[in-house]
């Protein structure tokens, strides 16, 4: 099928197209510079055209999502939509069912989403859910930060072994890259404890979070994985945690980037908002966004996503299980926990972010501060750490806040939000606004580049034909006006067209076609000998301490159909 999207206003920052009126041509699922006369013309005159969105960090598939759905029927009930001739029934608000997840991302014009936390033991479950999610390709990241084999390799300072382990485990779990969550802290949670800061060792192992992050980052560059180290630092959500965050970023500063990768960074810090707190307790908590943003402004080896609070009742879920128990002690709401042998922990709890609450408002303001204080939009990506700071369906609302400082001022001055926004943060003084080009960077181009995805997040020749068209005329619309914020939100929530691999999947905000999501995974080659040796070395420990057989541990091919394999030559 061939298409021409005619006369749209195109924002394609990767290719320096900044609001030009031009056609976008599509053939065989790719962006091309020429189509035949059979091409179907879609008239998008003066409408906003961008590459489809790319989400660098979200929680959409896998065991803890499922646990959330299982134990929050009241959340499932909140998003019930009946089936149609094309779509299946939807449920869920903060933790949508699999089909709802696909439809909702697709309706917002997104095409690629990263599932940010996969425990390898239950990777089959994650892939089963990805099979049930339509219309978006998914890049899952496997958890390594508290894995016993990793701790062992780090303890023995065996980087070669660690690299072979990582490359082998990515194959086994069919994951795209590496994720570290509260390194050593989730292992400490095995005993009901936590670690504090990057120099506090895990009980028994004697290894610190800083050492784990450093070793895994080295390995990441050694192998040349498409995505960098993706880290959720220690001390999430604790007032006074920003020095830990900066220390985590700084501990890998001297590690050289692999020359063969597309990305610029060696470390991606996720949901930075939760890691940018000053003060010593919730009583005197204040923003730590300025020093953190300042560090990022001075250091190109770092990228981040924000984890913007959206003022919703949502569900928090993270492999940072001790933090979830802390939250349970604070709120008393129903707490779930799921520890995974030899690998990780995780916890869940419902949370209500209220604009009347000082803490929620502080978190909201810190997120916006980070967006506005980090100067280079290629270093800061829009996320809500969905569903942790809010469900992903709120991205358009966040965009409306970024595009209008008037709207932000209005919220503060009309007391729509608690006065901590002005008393404890610098948000009222920040009048920077994002334009459409900045929005295209923070929602598509930058996340694609950070993930190392060459063919996504832009509309250059040869790119995947993942395109979003929105029913708004950028040239005749003032997004900086406070009164237009609701329009921005509404329009971006329901794309005029979402095109996935050259097929129209959304038209006028409605799903018109279902395509299977592809499982993106990284296959490291050229490391086979080392992998073989490492497997032999660790097999006695595996057999003795896991409760499944190694043969049944791995993710078989039929769980990743259809797949996109990213082959990396590690010998290069």
């Amino acid at each position, binding site marked *: 099928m061939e298409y021409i999207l005619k006369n749209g206003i195109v924002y394609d920052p990767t290719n320096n197209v900044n609001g030009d009126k031009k056609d976008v041509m599509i053939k065989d699922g790719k962006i091309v510079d020429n189509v035949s006369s059979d091409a179907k013309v879609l008239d998008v005159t003066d409408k906003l055209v961008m590459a489809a969105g790319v989400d660098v960090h979200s929680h959409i598939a896998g065991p803890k999502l499922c646990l959330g759905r299982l*134990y*929050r*029927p*009241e*959340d499932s*009930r909140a998003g019930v939509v009946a089936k149609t001739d094309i779509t299946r029934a939807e449920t869920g608000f903060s933790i949508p069912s699999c089909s709802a997840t696909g439809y909702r991302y697709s309706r917002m014009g997104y095409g690629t989403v990263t599932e940010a936390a996969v425990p390898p033991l239950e990777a089959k479950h994650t892939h089963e859910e990805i099979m049930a999610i339509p219309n978006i390709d998914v890049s899952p990241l496997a958890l390594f930060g508290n894995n016993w084999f990793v701790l062992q390799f780090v303890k023995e300072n065996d980087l070669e072994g660690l690299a072979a382990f990582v490359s082998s485990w990515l194959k086994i779990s069919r994951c795209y890259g590496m994720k570290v969550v509260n390194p050593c802290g989730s292992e400490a949670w095995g005993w009901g404890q936590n670690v504090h800061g990057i120099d506090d060792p895990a009980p028994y192992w004697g290894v610190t979070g800083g050492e784990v992050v450093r070793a895994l980052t080295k390995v990441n560059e050694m192998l040349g994985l498409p995505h960098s180290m993706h880290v959720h630092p220690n001390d999430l959500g604790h007032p006074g945690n920003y020095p830990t965050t900066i220390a985590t970023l700084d501990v890998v500063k001297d590690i050289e980037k692999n020359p063969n990768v597309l990305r610029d960074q060696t470390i991606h810090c996720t949901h930075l908002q939760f890691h940018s707190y000053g003060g010593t307790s919730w009583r005197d908590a204040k923003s730590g966004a300025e020093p953190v943003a300042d560090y990022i402004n001075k250091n190109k080896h770092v990228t981040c996503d924000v984890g913007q609070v959206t003022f919703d009742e949502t569900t928090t879920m993270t492999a940072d299980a001790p933090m979830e128990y802390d939250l349970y002690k604070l709120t008393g*709401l*129903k707490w779930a926990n799921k520890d995974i042998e030899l690998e990780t922990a995780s916890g869940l709890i419902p949370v209500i972010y209220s604009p009347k609450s000082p803490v929620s408002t502080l978190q909201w303001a810190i997120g916006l501060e980070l967006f506005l204080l980090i100067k280079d939009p290629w270093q800061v990506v829009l996320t809500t750490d969905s569903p942790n700071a809010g469900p992903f369906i709120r991205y358009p609302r966040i965009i409306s806040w970024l595009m209008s400082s008037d709207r932000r001022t209005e919220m503060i001055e009309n007391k729509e939000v608690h006065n901590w926004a002005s008393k404890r943060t610098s948000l009222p003084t920040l009048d920077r606004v994002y334009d459409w080009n900045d929005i295209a960077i923070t929602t598509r181009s930058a996340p694609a580049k950070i993930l190392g995805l060459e063919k996504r997040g832009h509309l250059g020749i040869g790119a995947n034909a993942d395109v979003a068209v929105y029913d708004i005329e950028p040239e005749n619309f003032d997004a900086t006006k406070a009164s237009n914020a609701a329009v921005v939100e509404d329009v971006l929530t329901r794309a005029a067209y979402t095109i996935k691999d050259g097929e129209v999947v959304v038209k006028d905000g409605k799903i018109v076609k279902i395509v299977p999501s592809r499982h993106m995974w990284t296959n490291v080659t050229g490391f086979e000998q080392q992998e073989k040796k490492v497997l032999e070395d660790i097999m006695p420990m595996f057999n003795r301490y896991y409760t499944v057989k190694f043969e049944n541990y791995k993710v078989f091919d039929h769980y990743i159909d259809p797949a996109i394999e990213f082959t990396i030559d590690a010998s290069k």
Partner: protein
Amino acid sequence: MKTITLTLKKFSSIALEFEELIPDTVYNWNKEDFENYQVPVGNSRFPLTNYFDIEVEGDAEGPEDVKMILEGDMGRVKYIGYRMTDGEIIVNGDADLQAGAEMIGGSLKINGNAESYVGREMRGGNIEVMGNVKEYCGTSYIGEWRGMSGGVIKVHGNAGKQLADCMSGGEIYIGGNCDILAGIHMTKGYIEIGGDVTRWPGGQMKNGTIVIKGKLSYLLEGFDPEGVFVDPEVDGKQLAGKYIKYKGDVGVNGKGSLWLDAEKNRNLL
């Protein structure tokens, strides 16, 4: 004033779902509208006239002017008065599941027994049941920690298990006896039980008030006695006689109050 009378002529063992037939939606319907209406039954819809004789008298400006009378055994008619905001519904017979669930205002009277989930997540209005209710009367939705938040439920007969789970407001009066775990997980509101209670009222309650005028068979360890009071005033209501007051449930640091008639529960004095 508009009076709508639906008289059952054919009982369906597959339940009819009545959430669309509340004063808010039908106040401007005439007889023909009812005759054209298809009621959900299982995975289908069938003409309401298959099951009911329909009479409509008078006119209404809004739901507040509507009186709906359901004549006959409504033991397979679910969701009577679901989410109604105003007007009046009278059931002359038994009512099925979810009568008055998520009710916001108006009144619902059942001149018979009612199945489970009467007044689930009720926010306002009045429900009166002349007979018994089964489990989960005045409860929350499963998983939801915010339950019934307003309105009044009055049951003249007995109540089943787990009355008012997670109650967070409103008032419930049970004339007869009550089964186990009334007011479990409650955080606010007032429950008064006229008859006897089997076991464990107020399990894991954080706050709110439960008054038991009959005999309680088993009290939980999580309740601490706070003394005996004569003719106490409880939540603005004057109780007559001697009552033992307890505070609990200690297990969840609860500050709820449980009042037991002292005469009927002399063993606890």
